[in-house]
Structure formats: structure tokens, C-alpha cells
């Protein structure tokens, strides 16, 4: 597969609250041959306040981002943040309306000339790179790690804008984590709301909603909750104190999927940047290693049992062949075939032990 070259929009949180997402995304992309060309002098996408105040001003912010990209010859852009993605995508689609586009251009004075597209890093990972190629890169499997993926509200919705995966029951991140070796548990609240930016007007809402997600993750037996959105990550990770104060007693690390990829690819610790998480992830990894050892022991036992079964079957076959040989000339062929089979199986069993 040829390497991918795309424009890159880190988003504001990538420079602040989600530095670990930013760092691990860049590292993982480098490892997978995705060339990221950061849009020069990009600006805020408008976040939640802009579009809830004025759609044209909000689109103007997005339009300037794409115009800056055009200066560097960038048309196709990816971003790790689903919220940025939604704002940029909505602006692009709304600007297909010539009247609206004229309003935006009057503000920016920079009409867009190129074809633009904007997608999420996750979408590029599963659609362009593919889980098979990711599986091939894994050097430290996450075998034994029990995870639940948490997509949040925006990764797949609104359906008509995002056009990615099943809006209510997405599985893209599930498949990616499986490729890393992790055990992905069924998680019914994978698209439930974490509280979003409600923490600003009302402090009570977010811990309640985020707490429900953590509680369910704990209940299904997850070691950690994997996220793809800076705001979700913050609500789930940073607020665990508030959540515990509300009576839900769960302690779960909340890493970005790119951090787990960095670990599975055995990239330097600084790239995985687990030290930026509020809840410590190391106990989860320790648990993973214990479980992996158990699983491997279990697998060895099963393989040995299989080999023993094969050996017995071969013995029986050999005996039968012996009898057949006594009975007539046709028995000879059967015997040699049976003998060969026995040998192969025995070798395989021995190697395992």
C-alpha cells in the first residue's frame, strides 16, 4: 500500500488538554506511513459556542482553515477531534449552498477554490490503512487487555453529516482494538453522551452522565475505556473524583486509541504519553500481563491435549493399517499415509511444549 499524504488539523485541545492524543496520533501516523502536513497558521474551528451563535461566522472560521490549507496546496484534511471534524464538515456542506457561501466569503474575503474534504484520524485508520495492516504492525500485542470502546456523540452522528459506521452501534474502533490484540467487550453505552460541555453551565450534569458510562464499563468488566475525543476523555478521566463523590465507585483509565496503538507498535514511551492521563493506566497493563500469561498457559494446555488426541488417533490408524496389511496388499498405502500424519502431529506438539 502506498503511503498517504494529507493535511492535518490538530485542533486547539491537541495543544492543551489532549497533548497525549496529539503526540500519539503523530507518532502512530508516522509509523503507518501517513504523512501529516499541518495546515499553516490554522485557527480554532469555532467549537461549540461559534455555531450556536452565528452559523455564518462559524463557517467563516472553518473557511479560513481551508483557505490556509489552500495556500499550502492542501485539499484533503484529517483531524483527530470529532468536534472539530463536525464543525469543519458542516461548514463545507453548508457552503455548497451558493447563497450561504456568498455570505461566508463576504466575511473571509477568501473564496475557496479547491475541492476540500475533512475526515477523522479514526476513519482514515480503518478505511484507508485497514485493520489488517495495523495488525501487521503490532509488536507488543494487547492480548489480555479487556477494553470497551467509547465513541461519544459526534463520531458517527449526525448520520447525514458524518457518514461513518453505524450511527447507533458503531464498530470501527472495536475492530481496530481487536487488531491490536485487545479483548473488546460489548458496550451498550458506546455512543451515550458523556455530558459534553455541560460542565460549563451546570456542574451536576457531566459527572452523572460520565459516571453512568464508567459504571457500565466497570460492570461489563473492562480494564479501561478507550476514547477518540478530547472532550469525552476529559469528562471521563478528569472527573472521576467528582463521579466517585456522586457514589459511583469506579477507577478506570481512559486512554486515546492512538495511545494504545503506540504501545502496541512498541513506540517510545514518550509517544504513547500515558503519563498525561489522570487515572494511572499501569495497573491495567499489569492486569493485562497476568491475564495474558494465564491465556497462554491455557492455550499450551489445549494444544498439548490436541496433540495427544492426534497421537492416539494415529496409533489407532496404524494398528488398523497393520491389520489391513495382514488382510491384503491394499493395506500398505493406508499404513504409510497414517504414519506420516502421526509424525507431523507429534512434531507440532513437541515444538509447542
Amino acid at each position, binding site marked *: 500500500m502506498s503511503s498517504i499524504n494529507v493535511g492535518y488539523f490538530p485542533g486547539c485541545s491537541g495543544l492543551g488538554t489532549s497533548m497525549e492524543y496529539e503526540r500519539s496520533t503523530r507518532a502512530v501516523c508516522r509509523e503507518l506511513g501517513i504523512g501529516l502536513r499541518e495546515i499553516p497558521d490554522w485557527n480554532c474551528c469555532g467549537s461549540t459556542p461559534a455555531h450556536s451563535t452565528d452559523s455564518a461566522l462559524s463557517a467563516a472560521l472553518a473557511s479560513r482553515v481551508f483557505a490556509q490549507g489552500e495556500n499550502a496546496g492542501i485539499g484533503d484534511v484529517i483531524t483527530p477531534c470529532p468536534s472539530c471534524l463536525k464543525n469543519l464538515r458542516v461548514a463545507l456542506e453548508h457552503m455548497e449552498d451558493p447563497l450561504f457561501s456568498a455570505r461566508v466569503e463576504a466575511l473571509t474575503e477568501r473564496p475557496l477554490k479547491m475541492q476540500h474534504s475533512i475526515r477523522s484520524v479514526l476513519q482514515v485508520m480503518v478505511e484507508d490503512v485497514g485493520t489488517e495492516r495495523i495488525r501487521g504492525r503490532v509488536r507488543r500485542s494487547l492480548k489480555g487487555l479487556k477494553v470497551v470502546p467509547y465513541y461519544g456523540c459526534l463520531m458517527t452522528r449526525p448520520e447525514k453529516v458524518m457518514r461513518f459506521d*453505524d450511527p447507533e*452501534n458503531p464498530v470501527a474502533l472495536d475492530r481496530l482494538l481487536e487488531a491490536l490484540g485487545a479483548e473488546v467487550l460489548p458496550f*451498550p*453505552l458506546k455512543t*451515550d453522551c458523556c455530558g459534553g460541555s455541560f460542565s460549563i453551565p451546570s456542574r451536576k450534569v457531566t459527572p452523572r452522565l460520565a459516571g453512568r458510562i464508567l459504571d457500565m464499563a466497570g460492570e461489563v468488566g473492562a480494564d479501561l475505556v478507550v476514547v477518540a475525543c478530547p472532550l469525552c476523555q476529559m469528562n471521563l478521566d478528569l472527573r472521576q473524583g467528582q463521579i466517585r463523590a456522586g457514589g459511583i465507585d469506579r477507577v478506570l483509565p481512559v486512554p486515546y486509541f492512538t495511545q494504545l496503538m503506540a504501545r502496541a507498535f512498541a513506540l517510545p514511551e514518550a509517544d504513547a504519553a500515558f503519563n498525561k492521563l489522570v487515572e494511572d493506566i499501569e495497573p491495567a497493563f499489569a492486569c493485562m500481563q497476568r491475564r495474558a500469561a494465564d491465556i497462554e498457559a491455557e492455550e499450551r494446555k489445549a494444544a498439548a491435549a490436541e496433540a495427544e488426541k492426534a497421537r492416539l488417533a494415529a496409533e489407532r490408524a496404524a494398528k488398523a493399517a497393520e491389520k489391513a496389511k495382514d488382510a491384503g496388499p491394499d493395506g500398505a498405502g493406508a499404513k504409510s499415509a497414517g504414519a506420516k500424519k502421526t509424525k507431523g502431529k507429534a512434531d507440532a506438539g513437541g515444538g509447542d511444549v
Partner: protein
Amino acid sequence: MKIGVFICHCGSNIAGTVDCAAVAERASTYPDVVYATDIMYACAEPGQDAIIAAIKKHGLTGVVVASCTPRMHEPTFRKAVERAGVNRYMFEMANIREHVSWIGKDIEANTNKAAELVRMAAAKLRLDRELKPKSFPVTKRLLVIGGGVAGIQAALDAADAGLEVVMVEKQPTIGGKMAKLDKTFPTVDCSSCILGPRMVDVAQHPNITLYAYAELEEVSGYVGNFDVKIRKKATYVDWDKCTGCGLCTEKCPSKKSYDRFNEGVGPTTAIIIPFPQAIPKKASIEREYCRQFNKGKCGVCAKVCPTGAVNYEMQDETVEVKVGGIVAATGYDLVDWKVYSEYGGGRYPDVVTSLQYERMLSASGPTGGHVKRPSDGTEPVNVVFVQCVGSRDPSIGRPYCSGFCCMYTAKQAILTKDHIPGSQSYVFYMDIRSPGKGYDEFTRRVQEEYGARYVRGRVSMIYPKGGKLMVRGADTLMGTQVEVEADLVVLAVGAEASANSSALAEKLRISYDGYGFFMEGHPKLKPVETNTAGVFLAGSCQGLKDIPSSVAQGSAAAAKALGLLSRDMLDSDPQIASVSVNRCVGCRKCIEVCPFKAIQEVDMRGQPKAEVIETVCQGCGLCNATCPQGAIQLSHFTDNQILAEVEALCRF
């Protein structure tokens, strides 16, 4: 020619926005018009009498009535002019109601347009010719497609009246959806107890031939004389020998087959008799689950069958039947609710459909009438019913109301309480729709006597938590979010036209709407007829309806079919194509395009000529538009007649 023109007021329907007297005055100046007047209600008895009187008084030889659409009253007026001795085809209508007075309020424009439409009609009438229908014999046999309650009713009524009936059912048993129901609303009668005897009647009726596990393959011909091909699907059991003893179904080792009749509630065997009251009570093999077919060895059923009826070599078989009329009663199917990922999309075993729940409630069902959670077999306490799953939802292309879900949900809530006295039902609804005799009282009873809690609002999400199902939704009356911890969730899944209904419609040459429901001839006045003569509709295939309405429509369809087939001879529509032999050059283009193979080549003194087979021609006029020299003309819609209408409008 002497033309009389009658401009109908239709009360104020037309006269409100059209100056009818002015139109009549303008019409009196048109060529050949000798008499023109306006009239209050042309279709009413005084109106018809006035037309007849005018014909006699003025010696009219043709009549134009400007009133409503000809699709409504053309037959009425044709009969009226015929009573006055004028050939029924010497009559034209101008549609000044649906196409003029009802679509705009500009009196000047409407009056002018009405006058022009009358001019067109009169111009066409001048070229009308007297047409006389020919008569042809009728096959006195009725085909009923579908053996649900509507089809059963139609078949029994027709057969009781002495008509031969052929019934085709695609499942191995008749009974349809009603046979799967435990009880019926609002009387909570046992469904199979009231349907069962009717099913037996079908089996035993001397006038009814039943082809179960069969499908309609092909229909050709025309009203009174349809040729029908029926494909009997291979059951791998010779039904002449099968006694329905059921030994094979006990011994069959493939015990994990999907149970179609029981909607997959519990498994069944590969050779089955769908349910104890099945008609015909015969076994059939579901090939996809049978070991004999999948693994090439088994043969248990053949070994145990006391009559040697099992035959793995059986092939599909085609039978050909001649019938005079057809009743389509193909019913409905449930919407594929698995598109709703927020309800689990099928991932949660304790989320079941309403029809699966019926099978759980039914004493003859796989659970013996004990309501159990499919996941662990325990008895549920909290049961949540979610209404409008796949109804009234434009986002999945099902914006219509399925009509019966409110009522069966109420019934199921009552039955839940009867089965499990300690249970509590919750019903999430959008609106309660319960028009019908005793229906609204029923929905009150379920709340007031049975304590079901009705929550007005949609369910946004169902998710499992600790062995229970969390049902999250809105209570729009309280203005709050609610979350109910449920043991079992029953989705009131909406209904849609049955699978392949559009393909069947195309075979029958009837129309269907955007959802696949068959189109009736007129939404008010022809609810069981179609626009294809001789084809009638019964039950939910025409639009969703509950049992009493389906039964009523079944009887109505039978009455219509009987009316048609009680005659020995039928009149053919004389509005068909005919060939001017002199002008035909034998190029065969008409023969090539005719959809009905109604044109044949004949030899006339060594020259090839086209000839229309009058009973086969349906009068579409495709041949007329195809013939370069216009040697084949569609009577009553000839080139000259259409040109006259165009020229009445476009005279530079």
C-alpha cells in the same frame, strides 16, 4: 352531428369558481353544438333526466358533460345517454372540477379554462364513432392469492355461492398472521379457536382447491379468461400419502432449525408440520436445515414414515388453471426492525417482536403459553412495550401508521397481567389510536383495570445492564427523561406490504403505491376493485387493517367477484385497436411492441397484414403510436381524435 353540452355546477364545487352559464354560452358557439346549458347536479337523477329530455327534444347525437373527472362519472353518464338512445361512446366529458374549480380561485381564468376544456371535448366528440361491445364467455372460477383470514373469507363466500375457487398460499399452511396470534382484541377471544373452523371449511369445501406451499408464477389473459400458472414448491413429502401423524417431526435429528411459524421463538425440526391446527396438516421439509440435503445422509424421516411419503427427489411442479377473476389477499410482513441499532438491532435476546410475544403467549406455542425470557428462561416482572417501531417513522421510509399496533399492544399488556399476575407492564406510545367498536374502552381498561403504565414518548435507547434491559425514553407529558428497568421488552413492530408484493402486482398488472400496497380502483368508491378488470383486493395487501376489516374486505371482494362471474358472457371493451387493412404494409412493428401479444400477422392475398385479436387487446394504443402510417388505430382515441383536441388548443 348535433351536440348538446351540459355544464355542471356540482353545487358550489364548480360554480363557486367557474361561471358555468358563461361557459355554456361560449360552448353554444362551438362547431356542431346545437344546445348548451348549465345544470345544478348533472349526475343526480334530475340532472340525468334533463340530459335525456334534451337529447329527445333537440335530437342530439352526441353529448358533452363538463363536470367532475371521467374516472368518477363517465360510466354514469354513458348509461344515461344510452337510456336516451344515443350510443354510449358518443359521449365526452370535460373535467372542470378536479382540473379547474378545485385547483384555483381565479374565476376569470377558471371560466376560460373550463370553456377550452369543453371545446376540446366537443372537438373530440365530433370524431367519435358508435362502438358496440362484443361479448365473450366467462370462466366461472376464482383464484384467491393468499390464505390469510381475508383470503379465507373471500374463498369461502365465493365457494358457498357456488363458484369454483382455487386458493394459492405460499406457506405450507393457510391461516396467515391471524393463525399466529394468541388472542384477538378487544374481546380477547382465542384467535385459533375462531379461525380454525374456517380453515377446516376451506380444506373440506367441495368447491375449493387449495395449493399450499405454492406461488403464482405467471398470469396472462384478461378479465373472465385469465390463464394462471401456479408453481407448487417441492415439500419433499408426498401429500397424497402423508397423514399428518407427525412421527417424522418427532424423530428428525435436525432439531435446531429456524421455526418460521413461531417466529424463531425456540427451534424446530427440519421436517415440520407448522402447528397442530395446520391446514393442510401435512409435513414438509425445510431444505436448508435438512441433513439429508446438507450432508447427503440421514434419511430418518423416510425410514420412520409409516406411509412412505417422504421423497427427497421431489421437484417443483407447475399447474395451469383457467380462472375468470382473481382476488389478491397477500397480507403484510413486519418491518425489519433490526435497522434500529438503538434497540439493539437484534443483539439482545430479551428484546422480542410483538409477533414473537404472541407465540410466547399462545398455549400451542413453543413455550406452551408460559412467558419466559429467551435469555435465561425466567419469568419477567417488568415488561416494557415500545410502540411505533417502524411505524410513523419517515427516517426509515415508513411514515404511515400501521393501524393495529396500539390495540394489540393493549391486548398483550392485558394478557401479560393474566399470565403473570405479579407483573408490571409499561407502554411507550406516541398517540393511542383506537377508533373502532369497543377499541377505546379497551385501551382504558388496560390502564385502569390492569394497571399498565402508559408513557407518552419515544424510546431512545435500550441497553443491557446487570441481566436487565434499561429502557431509556422521554415522558413528554411529564417533560422528563425516564428509564425503566425491564426484564423483557416487546417491540410493537410496524407492518409493511408483504415481500415481493410489487413483483406480484406487476404479474397481475395492477398498480401499487410507494410502499408496495396495491392500489384500489378508487379510494372511496372502489375499495376492493383495482384498475385491472377482474382483479380484486382483500385485506392488508391494499393497506394495513385489522381482522374485522380484513374479513369485511374479503367478503366484499367475493361479492365483487361473484357479480362479475355470475354472468355467462362479458362485454368486451370496444375501445381497442383495429387495423385498416388497405393501409397496413405488414412491417410488424405493432406486433413487436404489443405487450399483450394481441396482434398477429395474417396473410391477405399474399400480403402480410396485422390483425388485432379483439379479446386480447387491452386498448393501450402503443401500436397506434408505433405504426408510422397510422394504419392501426385505437378506437375512441384515434390519431384524429387526439389531433382534434390538440388543434382545439393550438390553432397558432
